[in-house]
């Protein structure tokens, strides 16, 4: 076992001991503890837990890599995944906290006085959460197999075991305090390499400022200016310009924002604070903790891209010779072993010609130099994980990144598993099938549901249905088109009734599901080619949740207009959630 691997085992092992210790210390004793941590979580602690809950393997591992290769177009993730918190803080969190019960489907069931609405909401919730959790378990598997060099199954089983201990034992209470620890691990792991790399490239220790600074050793060459030049020399579009249509950029951004505000595992975090005013503040703390990573990510992306290009093209980019394959650095070899980095010597000269061969305007230049196609395939997912190695940072930084990736994936997985288990035990079993169940019986049912959900998630992580990447669009689109409008209308309108809400949710759900299926073909072959010419209003499947949401609103308003108004006690419920006074502790049904 080499030095790096030993270090990784020590760092990852230490974090696991920490998580289990917290779980034992914060065991859940009542359903209130299990579902909403007894509503006693400090707003700052809840903000940290929300940040860890929200930032998944996708944020930690994939996002900076996406931005590195998309440039300006990557902004949809940055704005989309942070702007949703404004919607949460202004439109949802304080009112749902005042309402004060345990789950999102409970609110929809009470507000729309309907068991059918509850079942529809539970179906949306379970679908959204399982698609998401499968990706997290996969992330755990990848990190384990790369850094600890165990096979993916072993990695998955260890990850499942850890989540099992603290989610099943501790419920929301255990998860909350573990997530606080996981946040600290992941943010430290993310920012340390970013600070090092920012200092190397620009001399500025703050990556957010480094990205806007000049390159070290030059007087007037800004980093972004240099990046724009080198990528264009290789036939790519300028880094700071976009290539997507404006309407699609706007639609994806809005779908991600609204989807964020409609994700049940995020909403439920605001049920855990003691007061309505805490719920508002806590959303701000959550975004502050998230913004630490999200404002660093664009710097990580841009700097990693520049480092990668400068490694492959040590001289004048595209003018001199690129790196010879025989002289490739150590990190290149390790990542080649995982298949996430791949070199094919198309023109047989032993040099790594990395450029954009999909650009027809650049083809004559490439042909004149004897290049016969791009020879380097770089998986976007490795940019964050390989970044410290590319920048030649010390081994302990690399070990830290492994622990951070695992923390990000485990914290999100645990939050998702908890909302799945509470939807099953509280909304389905307690409220539909066995209304006379005791608190202890419900707690046991919740624990069993969490255990079953972990097994299903582990199975999905090991045998990813070929579509894990595609289903991310699903989770956000469905949350935006189904749950978000139903909750918003439930708070801001006294006129939307049972019939309207159910019809609206089903319309949004079926439309969005159908559109994604039509172009992405999950379970079936796609019906139409997924290209801009075929899209409705030029909106891609990633952004279609916005149209689904508008349809949901329109259908709900129309149907409600022609059916009976909600009963008087529902109007009283709405009036009551609109004022903060009177938000007590946990209430049972």
């Amino acid at each position, binding site marked *: 076992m080499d030095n790096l691997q030993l270090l990784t085992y020590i760092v990852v092992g230490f974090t696991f001991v920490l998580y289990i210790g917290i779980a034992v210390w914060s065991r859940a004793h009542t359903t209130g503890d299990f579902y909403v941590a007894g509503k006693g979580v400090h707003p700052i602690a809840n903000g940290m837990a929300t940040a860890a809950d929200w930032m998944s393997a996708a944020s930690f591992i994939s996002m900076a890599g996406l*931005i590195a290769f998309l440039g*300006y177009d*990557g*902004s949809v993730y*940055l*704005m989309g995944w*942070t*702007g949703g*918190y*404004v919607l949460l*803080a*202004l*439109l949802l969190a*304080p009112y749902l906290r005042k309402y004060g019960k345990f789950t999102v489907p409970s609110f929809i069931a009470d507000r729309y006085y309907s068991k059918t609405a509850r079942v529809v909401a539970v179906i949306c919730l379970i679908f959204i959460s399982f698609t998401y959790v499968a990706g997290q378990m996969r992330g755990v598997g990848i990190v384990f197999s790369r850094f600890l060099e165990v096979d993916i199954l072993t990695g998955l089983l260890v990850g499942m075991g850890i989540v099992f201990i603290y989610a099943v034992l501790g419920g929301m209470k255990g998860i909350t305090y573990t997530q606080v620890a996981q946040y600290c691990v992941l943010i430290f792991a993310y920012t340390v390499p970013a600070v090092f790399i920012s200092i190397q490239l620009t001399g500025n220790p703050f990556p*957010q*400022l480094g*990205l*806007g*600074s*000049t390159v070290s050793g030059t007087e007037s060459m*800004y*980093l*972004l*200016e240099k990046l724009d030049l080198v990528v264009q020399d290789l036939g790519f579009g300028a880094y*700071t*310009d*976009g290539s997507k249509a*404006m309407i699609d*950029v*706007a639609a994806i*951004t*809005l779908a991600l924002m609204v989807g964020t505000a409609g994700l049940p595992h995020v909403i439920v975090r605001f049920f855990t604070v003691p*007061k*309505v*005013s805490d719920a*508002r*503040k806590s*959303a*701000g703390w959550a*975004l*502050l903790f998230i*913004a630490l990573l*999200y*404002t660093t990510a*664009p710097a990580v992306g841009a700097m990693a891209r520049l480092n990668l290009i400068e490694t492959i093209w040590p001289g004048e980019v595209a003018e001199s010779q690129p790196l010879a394959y025989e002289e490739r650095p150590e990190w290149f070899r390790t990542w080649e072993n995982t298949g996430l980095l791949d070199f094919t010597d198309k023109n047989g000269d032993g040099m790594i010609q990395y450029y954009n061969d999909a650009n027809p305007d650049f083809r004559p230049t490439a042909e004149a130099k004897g290049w016969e196609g791009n020879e380097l395939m770089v998986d976007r997912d490795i940019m964050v994980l390989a970044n410290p190695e590319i920048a030649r940072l010390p081994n302990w930084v690399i070990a830290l990144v492994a622990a951070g990736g695992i923390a990000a994936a485990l914290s999100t997985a645990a939050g998702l598993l908890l909302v799945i288990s509470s939807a099953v035990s509280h909304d389905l079993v307690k409220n539909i099938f066995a209304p006379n169940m005791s608190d202890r019986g419900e707690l046991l049912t919740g624990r069993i549901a969490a255990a079953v959900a972990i097994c299903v998630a582990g199975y999905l992580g090991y045998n990813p249905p070929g579509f894990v990447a595609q289903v991310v669009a699903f989770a956000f689109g469905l949350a935006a088109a189904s749950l978000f409008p139903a909750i918003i209308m439930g708070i801001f309108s*006294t006129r939307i009734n049972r019939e309207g809400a159910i019809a609206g949710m089903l319309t949004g759900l079926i439309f969005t599901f159908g559109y994604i299926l039509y172009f992405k073909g999950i379970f079936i072959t796609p019906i139409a080619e997924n290209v801009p010419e075929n899209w409705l209003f030029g909106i891609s499947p990633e952004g279609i949740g916005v149209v689904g949401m508008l349809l949901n609103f329109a259908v709900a308003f129309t149907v409600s207009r022609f059916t009976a108004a909600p009963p*008087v006690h529902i*109007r009283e419920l709405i*009036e009551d959630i*609109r*004022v*903060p*006074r*009177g*938000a007590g502790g946990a209430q049972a049904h």
Partner: protein
Amino acid sequence: MSQHSSQQSPQQSEHQDRRDAYWNANKRIMFGCLIVWFVVSFGFGIVLAEPLDNFHLFGYPLGFWFAQQGSIYTFLILIFFYAWRMNKLDREHDVHEE
């Protein structure tokens, strides 16, 4: 609500008026924040990004900065402003928590 206010006693209707005044003030603050939210992200970060890129903030083209940094900082300020302003409003209308 106006539909049933005719059957209410003067006391109840005064209570209702106070609630309506609070709710309307809340909505005004909320819409103000949402306008800023929209203008900064969809306005500066997307629709106007290209013309704004002609201006620079250090090494950042301005539109690019709004899309990848500025909008996030604005969101943060907006939420803390809203939380502070609403706490004040809760007290002004005497609906704050004990």
